[in-house]
């Protein structure tokens, strides 16, 4: 340790004005470039699905990886936003951007209510409480008059962005989705690397110490819970427009489990992990769809293997190799 002293200091001096690490900028740039050319090669609807789930998983990761809170009921926010935006677009005839906004706002409000109750407990209790609340939301979605029961809300019009740009074409919609999701990811990146994010990390690391420094930790936890719910809602609302459908799948507890799986195999608490995780899982579901129940089994196996052997997730492992945070 003492022999490292000097090097520590020098790198310290160099890195003192903390900014965005250069390799993060590079990765975001490459990602954006990839997203721009990708639809030429890959099926844009598939890409949009990956993007929506990447945002959803990143939102969960904000809470789990950076807030240290495992929500097992995040489908509640994803799903309710998807219902609200579908309803707004179809029944109220709102333009897509307003419909998405409405869905996102609904998720935020729901996040505030559930969060206020759930953060009273920690650890597994928290997980179970969020799960149970999500189940209440599920029953609501099943029975509420406007959700269409198990049919869901179908034939949602994609509409015209700002009343102008027709989104019926997959390509046009694709770039709108890229803009939304990329914006969402940047927002998460900013939250993580903000003064608030620093406090969050501190609370996750050592909650009693944060309290002893005078932080009202519950407010921070609630804030990050609401942010995470809101972003999950943004993902759900966008997904509803892409697939023109809001359905019970979006609010069911397996969806909550799936998004945890994405985060886990990508790498909890890494910035790019959830993207990778979402890509892997969505691709798997897409290309192995013919295997029927084997998809579930495969997911289960991935869950078990990652818990037992790869707790750091794919990106976590890579980050360890290259010795840089990702």
């Amino acid at each position, binding site marked *: 340790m003492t022999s490292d002293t000097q090097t520590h200091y020098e790198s310290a001096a160099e890195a003192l004005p903390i900014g965005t690490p250069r390799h993060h900028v590079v990765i975001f740039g490459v990602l954006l470039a990839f997203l721009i050319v990708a639809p030429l090669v890959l099926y844009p609807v598939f890409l949009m699905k990956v993007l929506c789930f990447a945002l959803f998983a990143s939102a969960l990761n904000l809470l789990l990886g950076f807030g240290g809170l495992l929500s*097992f009921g995040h489908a509640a926010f994803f799903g309710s936003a998807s219902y609200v935006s579908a309803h707004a677009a179809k029944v109220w005839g709102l333009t897509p951007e307003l419909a998405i906004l409405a869905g996102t706002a609904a998720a935020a409000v729901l996040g505030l209510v559930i969060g206020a109750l759930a953060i*009273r407990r920690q*650890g597994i209790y928290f997980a179970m409480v969020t799960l149970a609340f999500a189940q209440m939301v599920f*029953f609501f979605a099943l029975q509420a008059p406007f959700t269409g029961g198990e049919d869901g809300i179908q034939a949602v019009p994609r509409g015209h962005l700002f009343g102008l740009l027709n989104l019926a074409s997959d390509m046009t919609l694709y770039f709108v989705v890229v803009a939304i999701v990329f914006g969402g990811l940047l927002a998460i990146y900013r939250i993580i690397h903000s003064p608030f994010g620093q406090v969050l990390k501190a609370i996750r690391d050592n909650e009693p110490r944060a309290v002893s420094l005078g932080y009202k930790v519950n407010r921070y936890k609630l804030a990050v819970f609401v942010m995470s719910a809101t972003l999950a809602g943004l993902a759900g609302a966008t997904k509803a427009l892409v697939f023109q459908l809001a359905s019970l799948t979006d609010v069911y507890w397996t969806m909550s489990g799936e998004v*945890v799986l994405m985060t886990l195999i990508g790498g909890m608490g890494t910035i790019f992990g959830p993207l990778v995780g979402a890509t892997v899982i969505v691709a798997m579901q897409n290309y192995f769809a013919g295997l029927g*129940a084997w998809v579930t089994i495969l997911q*289960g196996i991935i*869950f078990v293997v990652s818990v037992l052997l790869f707790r750091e997730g794919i990106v976590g492992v890579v980050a360890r190799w290259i010795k840089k945070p990702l």
Partner: protein
Amino acid sequence: MFELLGIPPQALFGQLLLGLINGSFYALLSLGLAVIFGLLNIINFSHGAQYMMGAFVAWMLMTYAGINYWWALLLVPIIVGASGVVIERLMISRLYHLDHLYGLLLTFGLALIIQGLFRNRFGVSGLPYAIPAELTGAQNLGFMFLPNYRGWVVVASVVVCFGTWFAIERTRLGACLRAATENPTLVGAFGINVPRMITLTYGFGVGLAAFAGVLAAPIYSVNPNMGADLIIVVFAVVVIGGMGSILGAIVTGFGLGIVEGLTKVFYPEGSAVVIFVIMALVLLVKPAGLFGRTA
């Protein structure tokens, strides 16, 4: 005829009794979860899948080996419990030094695997399992027609719940278990094999789930999804009762069965959510649950 809240009293008794029967399943399942949580500090998400395995193994014993219900009631918990022992040894035991959340995630994955395998092999339309001949028929209780088998479910569940409670609260083995939940290191330093005890406890908890599965086989269709939805409700029961409390699990299980039964009469649409609503209320007032100790 006088009525109670708009329902004839006989009908109400009938409904209370039915609630108690459902409560029997909640109690057995939440008891298993509470036992496992108490000693391993693991939320056993695969509990529902193991309940389903119980029903399936009973069906398989019957179909492939001609083993009847009564033997199944004895053998199935042992067989499924043994699978639990293997799971604990191979997987769960590697997680004790980690955050408890990993236990939840691992057992969640296991639940997916188990359910998927059974779905692949048996489909989901459900398999028939006949009520044992000794228990067919019903008793006319005046206010209702009680199938003998349902009566037996209540009796069996009360006996097993009480037996488990007795074994844990009143025997030497139970004393070791309780001591190990308080201070496993010291219990180990007395020469007791705590890891083996933990393994067997997991096996026992899983066995309880399987037992409930065998009890359920003749009345609900034997189906790979039978545990998946039930387990979420049982989680809520456990949260309401107070995690890890044996008595809490039993009392809350039966109690909520009755509450749910009454909801089915007065507001059937709400019967699926009533438990979650109660859970939210309980959490507001007593975050540690009705019987839980505040950490």
